[in-house]
Structure formats: C-alpha cells, structure tokens
C-alpha cells in the first residue's frame, strides 16, 4: 500500500444543520456587476433563498459555471465555486460530484453556454441522472459577447450576428430536457422571483438531475424578450387544476407551449435511480474520503492476472 506522505486531516462534510442563514450570510466577496435590471439578479437571489430553505451551508455547496454574464454568478455568492470554461459547467460539476457526492453541486450558466456549445453535455448529464441541479439563465442572446444570436433566440430575431433575422428554429429546452431523461424539468422567470426561489428549492431537493430553465431577460441586448413580454405571457402550471408533471405526454404538450402563453413551474418529474446509486464505489462514501492506493494482497492478485 502506498505511503501517503503528507496526509491531511479534513473535517468531514458537515451535513447536519449548523444554522439557518440569512441572505447576508450568502453574500459573495464582490457585488454583481451585471447591468442594472439584468434578470440574473433574481436568479442569484432565488438561489440564495433556495439554499437557505434547503438548510445548505455555504461550505456544503459548490457552484460551477461556464463563461458568460450569467456564469459570473459563483463570484457573487458565498459558497465554493468553479468558474470554468464556456459550455463545460456540467462535466466539471459531474467530476466534482463523483469525487465528493456529499457536496451539493449546482451548475449554472447561460443559454449559449448550456444549449449552444454545451448542449451535448446537458443531454448526456440528463440521461446519466446524477444528483445535480442545473440552472440556465436563458436570455435568448449571447450577453457577454455583446449580443449575438443564441440557440434560443426566436426565429427572425435581429441580433449582431443576424442583422437580417435568425433563420434557425430555437431550441426547446423543456422538451429537450424531458426526452433526454432529466427527472426534473422546470421553467421560471426572473420577473416572478419568489416562484423561482421555490422551484430552485424543489430542484435542489430532487434526487436526480434537475434542469431549470430561467427566463432571465438581458436588458441590454435583447429588446424582444423583455420583462413585459414575459409578464404578459407567463402563468404557473401549479395553478392549473389537473396538471400532472409525472405524466410524460401531458408534460410534452406543455413543453411545446410557447407564444401567447408560456408555462412556468415544474413541467416534468420522474423518479429514477441516480447515477450515484448505481456506482458501487460510492457505497463507501465520497471517494475523496476513501483510502488511496492498492493493498499488497490486491496488488499481488492484479499482477497474477497477467501471468
């Protein structure tokens, strides 16, 4: 067995409740530098409220983002964070989670980040059903790069990269999330922050992969999908008498609703074993806490296989 030279004593992740926090406790070292009015402020606030509601302490949470205005979020909250690469929040988050599944790992980012360059990771993460929460600040534009079309920009929308109008059908994140195997798929809106916080808390509580698409207006570059535009259209599915997110086809129809009416809330849910459940090594607890190296007996056995 290997000799670990500089063994380090680590506190185990404290999963018991230390204290209930206030929003102030969750303030990051710097203030957000988003444009005044940016939808991402509501997302940040909702995430803090959800962490409080779920009794998650700052050191128990790790927030991974990609690159974009929205992906600056981890810098604005008091928690562990990785501000990773454009489009790669989910694989980084997956690595963290598999190394230490006692951490609450939350991935955040923009629509370009998650539905553009990172789309494949989203779909594979969904079918993998790791216990991750993925919050997408969908402003239907590339904010940080100053206003090009995003994969959710609506047909014919004029942007810096499509001055004559977008020619591609936008991504339908809700429907995509459902068919990819996400077990919790929701939509929220920055103009309805309390509802957003509630959905975040549910998403975090959900065991398995949750995708939360947040309509988070970019007040600087998207002059179409504005707060009033959404306010006029959004309603909550919870308010519909018979809505059952566990019914796949019902959810699918809801997923396609976009126009005069835009549904908010948990559109789809399912129960499926998580990836962690199926990984035998994790039965012994997080691998970061497991012994390193191979014992002599095991080694001899492994070597014998080659002879």
């Amino acid at each position: 067995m290997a000799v670990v030279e500089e063994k380090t004593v680590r506190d185990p992740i404290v999963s018991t409740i230390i204290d209930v926090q206030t929003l102030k406790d969750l303030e990051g070292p710097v203030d957000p530098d988003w444009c005044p009015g940016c939808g991402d402020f509501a997302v940040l606030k909702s995430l803090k409220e959800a962490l409080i509601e779920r009794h998650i302490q700052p050191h128990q949470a790790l927030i991974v983002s990609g690159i974009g205005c929205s992906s600056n979020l981890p810098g604005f909250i008091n928690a562990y964070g990785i501000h990773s690469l454009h489009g790669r929040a989910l694989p980084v988050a997956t690595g963290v989670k598999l190394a230490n599944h006692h951490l609450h790992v939350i991935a955040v980012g923009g629509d370009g980040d998650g539905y553009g360059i990172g789309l494949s990771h989203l779909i594979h993460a969904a079918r993998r059903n790791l216990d991750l929460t993925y919050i997408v600040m969908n402003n239907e534009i590339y904010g940080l790069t100053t206003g090009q079309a995003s994969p959710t920009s609506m047909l014919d929308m004029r942007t810096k990269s499509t001055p004559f109008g977008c020619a591609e059908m936008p991504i339908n994140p809700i429907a995509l999330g459902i068919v990819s195997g996400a077990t919790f798929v929701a939509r929220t809106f920055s103009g309805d922050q309390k509802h957003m916080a509630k959905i975040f808390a549910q998403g975090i509580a959900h065991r398995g992969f949750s995708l939360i698409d947040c309509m988070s207006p970019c007040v600087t570059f998207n002059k179409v999908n504005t707060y009033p535009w959404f306010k006029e259209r959004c309603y909550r599915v919870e308010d519909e008498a018979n809505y059952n997110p566990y019914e796949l086809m019902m959810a699918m129809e809801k997923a396609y609703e976009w126009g005069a009416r835009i549904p908010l809330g948990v559109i789809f849910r399912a129960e499926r074993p998580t990836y962690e459940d199926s990984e035998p090594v994790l039965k012994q607890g997080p691998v970061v806490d497991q012994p390193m190296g191979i014992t002599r007996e095991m080694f001899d056995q492994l070597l014998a296989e080659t002879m």
Partner: protein
Amino acid sequence: METVNHKPKEITIGLAGAAGDGLDRTGYNLANVASRLGLHVYAYNSYQSLIRGGHTWLRLRISERKIHTQGDHVNVVIALNQDSIERHARAIEPGGVLLFNGDRLRCDPALLPEGVRLLPLPFNELTGGLGKLLPVMQNTLAVGALMHLVGLDFEVLRGVMADTFGRKGGEIIAQNVAVAQAGFHYARAHSEPIIAGWRSSRPRLPFLTGNTAFAMGAAAGGCKFYAAYPMSPASGILHWFAEHGPKIGVVVKQCEDELAVANMIIGAGHAGARAMCATSGGGFALMTEAIGMAGMIEAPAVFINVQRGGPSTGIPTKTEQGDLNQVFGASQGDYPRAIIAPATLKECYYSAAEALNLAEQFQLPVMILSDLLLSEHRETLEPDDLTPEVPIRRGERLREAPAPGLNGKGPFRRYAFTPSGISPRLLPGTPGAMYVAPTDDHDEQGILISDEHTNTALRRKIQEKRMRKMEALLAELPPPVLEGPADAEITLIGWGSTWGVIHEAIEQLAEQGIRANHLHINYLVPFHKREVTEILRHCQRTAVVESNYTGQFARHLRAETGFSVDAVITKYDGEPFDPKHVIEPVRAILEGRLRDLRVTEEEAREIAYHYSRIYLGDKARPVRFERAPADGYGEPLWHVQLADRKSGLPLGDLIIGQETGSTYAWQVHGE
C-alpha cells in the same frame, strides 16, 4: 544465475493471420508459457484498423535475459492464411520453421529461404477424434507443435490453458489440451526442435502491456477517478479500470466525448480526488482547452496521450511519436505544466503514480506522452519490478480554514502569491474557507481582475506566481544521465518508447566495434536545460532517434537548449524501429552517407501488393523487380512484374516512381 560467457538463448516466433482469427489470444498464451518458466518475452502486435479480416502480425521474442524490443529476426512463423505465408515466409531465418494448417494452405517452395523447414500440420487427421472443433483450434494445434519446436515444457502450456479456459469448464480445457498435445506429438515425430535447454529457474514473470502498467501505477499512486472516451491505442487503460474499478475503489466513467473527460477529471481533481484520463491525439485535441483551465485554476489532473500514426485519424493502429508539438502547445497562453515521457514498461507504471504526485504537489496539469508501441506491446518484468508501495505526496494542503482576517486572518487566499508559487490548497467542503476557482485571471483570493479595471499589476504578479512553480518543479525532477561509454563516437538521444531499441542498437553497435552512448530524456517540460547542454557539449557526434517525420524532439531540444544535433534518425511508416533501423542510419552518419529516400525493392513489393488488392482483385502477386530509367515520368522507376497467383503466369508490369512512390501505370502484358 546466468553463467559467464553463456550467450543468452533467444528465439522469435511470428504469428500471422487475419483479425478475428484469435491469433493474439493464442500468442499471449504462448508467451505466458514462457513467462511462467521465468523466461523473458517481448511481444509486438502489428494489426490493422478493422475488426475482422485484414492482416495481423504478432511477434513474440523469447529470451533468457531481459529484452527491450521485438528484435530484428523471426525464427518460426505460424501462418493462418495463404497471404500470411506469402508475406512472411521469406523473412524466416535459416534453421527456422514455417508452420501452417496443411489441410487448407500450401507453401510455394520458391517463397522459402534456404535452410528453412516447412511443417504443415494435417489438422483434420490429427484432430479427427477430438469432437467438433472451432476453427481457432488450428491455432491450438500449432501452439502444441511449437512447444516441441522451441523446447518449452508442455505441462506449463496445460496450466496456462487451464487458467485461460477456466471459466468455460473442464471439457473445453480437456479438448484444448488434447488438440495441443496432438500438435506436440506430431511435431516431435516430424521435426527436430530448433532450440532447447532454456536455462531458467526463476519464478513466474508478470507479462503485461504498457496500458496495464499505466492503470496499475495510477491505482497504486492513489488515483480515485478515471474518465475516458474510447480511443485506440489508449482504450486498454479504460478496459483495465472498468474491470477493476469497483474492486480497488476507483470511480470509472466513460463519457460522451473527450471534452467531457478532461473537464470531469479536472472537476474531480479540484474536489480532491486524484484523477486521470487517457486518449490519443485526436481526443487530446479536444482536451486541450480544459488543460489550460487546469493550469489556470491550479487543479491537479493527469492526461495521457498514447500517440498513434498521424496526422488526423492517420494510421490508427500504428505507432508514432508525432504529438510532441501538440502536447507542448496544448491550450492558449503560458501556464505551468509538466510533460513526462516514460521510456519503458516499468516507467509507465511509476510515471503514472509520479504524475499524480506532481499534479497535486504543484497543482497543475501533468501530461504523459506514450505511444502505441509502449502502451500496447507486452513485456515481461521481474516479479519485484513493480510494487504497490509508491510514495503519495499530496503537497501543501490546509486541514481547515485559516482564522478570519487578513494577515493569516483574512478570507481564504487560495491563490496566495507565495515565493515558491505554490499556494496551499484547501478542499471544497471545508467550513469557512469558501472561494471560487476561476478561469478568468484573478487575485490571491480568486476574485476576477478582468472585469472592473485594468489591473496590470495583479495580472503581472499572478502570472509570475503561477510560472514560478516551474522552477520548483524542475528542481524536484531527476536530471537525465548519459548511459554508456563517455568516449563514444556517437551519442544517441531518445525520448519515450525508443529507449529499448536504442539500448539494443548500442549493444549491437558495440559488437560491430562502434562505441555509442545513450541520452534519454524523460521530462520534456520542464526541461533540464543546463544538465543536458552540459552533457551534449562533450559529445562527439549526436543523433536523435524518434518516430516522426519532422524530428519534433530534435526541434524541442534545440528550442530548449539551442543545441542542434548532427542528425535525426526518423521513422514514420507506422511500424516501430527494429534495432537495424537504428544501426544502419548510425553507420551511415558515421560514414557520411546521406539518407536514401527512394523506394526500396521491399517497398515496391508492398506497393505492388496494395495495387493487386485494390485494382486486380488480389489475384496477382509481385514476382520480379527491375530498376528502370526515368522513361518519361521524370524519375527513375521500378518495373514490378505481377503474376497470376494461381497459374504463376505474368500479367503485366506496374510502373512505380522510385522517388515519389507514385504508381504511374499498369502495363498489361501484350498490350
């Protein structure tokens, strides 16, 4: 135990057939017989990028002493199809034997060099009473015969078979042993052994691939997370981990692509689990952006690039050392990192463990350059060459959050600007020390400096902090040493998998009266500039030996030291260097001869075979080779006569350019 002046015995067996013939399994069983007898084996399998059919050529070199290459010779060939006889019979050395299934195949005596014997095995006759047999049983018959021919103990083969077919039950074992025995008896009745009296009383030797060594070394070195996307020739590491992960406590994840792989291991490394991945050049290209991230957020992670023939998809099942430029240039900007090139099977094992150490101690990405030859060849080791007792050095880590307040009392400064450049780590999950690891540049606490104000001062100092780690790292690494006589006429410089062939070439050169020595570089980045320059300054003549076209390492050496070697001995045809491929160029260099790039007769034959296969329905084979003048094509030519395989009648001449290798024309006879 070797007596003085006893020249160690050795023999090389070639197995040739199509993919799907079960030839590798057969070959490795054979190798295991030798390794269980304590004999050393070096095996190299030359195979193609297809699943069934095509051509596979597995060489097993067995020796009383430790050997490091597949060698230059072949003494026995087991041919599993007609094509294999045609291609390999001519290479058998005098005194050797060609074995094949006499029921299905025949050997044109014209193909056989003098002094080589045929041993066609009458498969049906010999195995008639042994029940319904799979086609792969012809291999077993041949292996049985081989036991006699090369003087190995049949009982050991019985043991290997029992282990190999163990799961399939006693009946299968019995059947296999019976078939092998039939072969053994037949050979004994019809042929003298070509070698016998192996001296060995050593214990069983481990016999494994470089990929297995990487995996085991990493596991011993504390790897807790392995991610991969399948890619030859790196997949062996994935397969080993997938099989053993649950037993040894390693989480193994096959991902959607290499982007995910690289980013996942960085996430895991950041969270505190030692993490590794492996791929080949194409997949490595997709990992490069993430490697730069690891450099920036100072996350430990290990990336193995098992090189294969490039560029692009290239020759996916062939070996090359062509990705040094790529690995050196991975990702944009300057960032600290290490690049290690293990040279031997043993080094594969220890370098994986060491890479994990360096990654954690210096908090940076470590890249390992292997290649198909090193990763996929199999070789015996001494039983105690590998040990699980490898040191695990985790580097500077804090157990708990520093007390609040700057001056040891502030928010946790993950990226503290220390004199060594190493900032103490603290793992996520620790109460009270929350920080963000950002790929945007940042201050000591991890706060971005790219957003509010041009901060040239902090930017300069953090870039210097990161890069200072390279000095500390270099100081930790053992400098290379010159092996062999100090007064050598020529110094051969190598990196990675060429160690073995250079080593053996130097031995042979010594026998030919040429004194050569050997400088092998294991650490490509950071580079022991001072030490290497000092060594090379004193060398008479220098040549780099490497498997690529442009001499990437020779260029790297010049870039790092300013030292230009006298010559670069390159090979870029996909097959590894045999010792002769080093020896002949060394002689040429010493004699002042230039390298001749013209198509050789052997190569003209290859080109003609290809032509026959693609354009003549494989019905013809090259039979005569003539050199001809330019004749309108602007370069001297080969006229290769192709004859009908069955009738032997000449069909026409293939005109091949000697310089370009272009296949200019096919002149049908009588046209």
